[in-house]
């Protein structure tokens, strides 16, 4: 709860910091603010309760989620430069908007009333629309922004309609009230049913799960890499846990109704995500499709209302956050390599000869790819393992089989960059990495390996 308040004010402060000394303090200040916010989360530690007339609900798990989000944000801000490549950039605004969007993300993980859910989703999405379009002169950026905006707004409409219908069915917005109504065996009204389906669709869109995934590749490709990273990590995490609260903590009694929708989406996401990624040339686009398949895996973890679902989901999210942070980070570190007509080349081919030019970067990239592919000794392996063990059930057995098959396909395209790293390249001179990048990479890579070697450090802790 306190991070929300703090971040909303620190965002305003950041805006005005932009006027001092052409905003050279903005980035450090942002990191500082985020750090303070993550510390302030501990004020509520072991003090579960409700805030704002039972709109937000605080307990240790939710705090953990906020913490994960904030720490990821710190990593991302740390590897962001002050947007020098963007003309007419107001970096202060971008950092401020990032902080505001974090407010939304935290709301989505801590909400108790659907009003808060809607506000969180909107705060997050609107900020992302803006951030996607930051590069005003870049046509691709514009296209990404308009696509993201139109589709996103449409999804918002659907989501709202769902919420309204649920309100009609229950007469309240609190998820406890919903579960209460469902528990007291009233006839499940049509309103509730339509509401659930539409709400689900709205959130699935934000999670980029097929068949509501169409925006994902284009937006991921068009947006500035740093914000692509933001979308891939923080937005996904927030949405998945919002879904967790909706499906597992309020609609668990309607499990039969939603599990089939989910199953369909999972199958589609896995197939489309993995197969489409195979032919991609652009690294960001490939990661976009892989993120669709990861969305499928996350939903797989939601498929059954089980005791360990939250653990597995958190584990999955953390390992995914770490891996994608290093993956996109490497791309950012190579931003000034092989620029073509002013814009940096974001194809997989940019990694050519990385092994000789910078063994460190190539190691980071390889480990992150292995983790995303789910090779043992990395966090990715255990995350997939836990999720699958949760979903293991005769009812959806075929999904497990499908997931395993498509993971094999995943290995195929995740190894493309790895192979490219070892190809000979015409350029030979070493790449200089700035120390902040080094620190972040060491952190994320070590994190991935530690999760892979000692999964219980995290899994047992939750």
């Amino acid at each position, binding site marked *: 709860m306190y991070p929300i308040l703090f971040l909303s004010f620190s965002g*305003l402060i950041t*805006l*005005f910091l932009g*006027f001092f000394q052409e905003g050279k303090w903005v980035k450090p200040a942002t990191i500082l603010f985020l750090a303070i916010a993550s510390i302030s989360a501990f004020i509520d530690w072991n003090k579960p309760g409700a805030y704002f007339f039972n709109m937000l609900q605080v307990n240790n798990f939710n705090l953990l989620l906020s913490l994960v989000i904030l720490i990821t944000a710190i990593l991302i801000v740390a590897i962001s430069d002050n947007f020098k490549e963007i003309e007419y950039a*107001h970096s202060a605004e971008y950092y401020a908007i990032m902080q505001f969007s974090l407010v939304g993300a935290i709301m989505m993980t801590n909400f108790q009333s659907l009003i808060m859910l809607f506000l969180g989703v909107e705060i997050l999405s609107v900020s992302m629309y803006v951030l996607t379009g930051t590069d005003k002169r870049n046509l691709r950026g514009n296209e990404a922004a308009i696509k993201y905006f139109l589709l996103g707004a449409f999804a918002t409409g659907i989501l709202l309609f769902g919420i309204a219908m649920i309100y009609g069915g229950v007469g309240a917005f609190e998820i406890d009230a919903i579960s209460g109504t469902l528990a007291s065996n009233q006839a499940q009204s049509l309103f509730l049913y339509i509401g659930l389906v539409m709400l689900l669709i709205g959130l699935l869109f934000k999670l980029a799960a097929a068949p509501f995934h169409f925006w994902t590749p284009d937006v991921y490709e068009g947006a500035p890499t740093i914000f692509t990273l933001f979308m891939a990590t923080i937005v996904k995490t927030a949405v998945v846990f919002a879904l967790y609260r909706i499906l597992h903590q309020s609609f668990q009694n309607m499990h039969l109704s939603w599990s089939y929708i989910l199953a369909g989406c999972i199958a589609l996401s896995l197939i489309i995500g993995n197969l489409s990624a195979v032919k991609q040339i652009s690294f960001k686009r490939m990661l976009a499709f892989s993120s669709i398949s990861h969305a499928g895996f996350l939903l797989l973890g939601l498929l059954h209302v089980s005791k360990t679902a939250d653990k597995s989901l958190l584990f999955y999210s953390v390992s995914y956050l770490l891996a994608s942070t290093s993956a996109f980070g490497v791309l950012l570190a190579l931003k000034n390599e092989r620029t073509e007509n002013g814009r940096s080349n974001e194809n997989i081919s940019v990694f050519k000869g990385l092994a000789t030019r910078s063994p460190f970067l190539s190691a980071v990239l390889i480990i992150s790819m292995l983790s995303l592919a789910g090779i043992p000794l990395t966090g990715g392996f255990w995350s997939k393992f836990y999720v699958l063990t949760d979903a293991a059930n005769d009812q959806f057995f075929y999904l497990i089989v499908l997931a395993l098959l498509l993971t094999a396909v995943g290995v195929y395209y995740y190894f493309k960059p790895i192979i490219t790293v070892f190809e000979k390249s015409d350029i030979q001179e070493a790449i200089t990495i700035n120390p902040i990048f080094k620190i972040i990479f060491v952190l994320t890579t070590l994190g991935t390996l530690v999760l892979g070697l000692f999964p219980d450090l995290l899994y047992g802790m939750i």
Partner: protein
Amino acid sequence: MLSQFGFILLFIVGAFLMLAGILGMARLLRPDKPNDQKLLSYESGENAEGGSLVSFNIRFYVIALIFVLFEVELVFLFPWSVVFGDKQLIEQTNGLWGWFSMAEMFVFIFILSLGLVYAWAQGHLDWLRPDQKVNPFKSEIPSDLYENINKKYS
């Protein structure tokens, strides 16, 4: 017996009939000799060119966006104004309630105004005019020659 809503329906229908009647009458009375000059949209004598969107100056959008935002925020003032002067609450808290809600609203407005200040400082509000271009061309021929010629032939 009609209900309130029935009356409203009647009003709507009536309005439409009225409009149709007036326009129809005008159609009957006025002379009707159209030519393309007449059919042009009146742009104070200028010929209209290009799509209708172009003629809008981009500056209008910025102002309009800012306006929309601040204007819509007002919506929060209405529920506030309902409870602000609530006798019962004021008595219960012997006056504290009024101050509290007042302060609350001022915080809200302060935050809004911060946004306005930011827009101002960024210079989104000042209306930039196109500056006059003076033609740097200088001709070698002294101007009095022209005047002589004018005199001569006037």
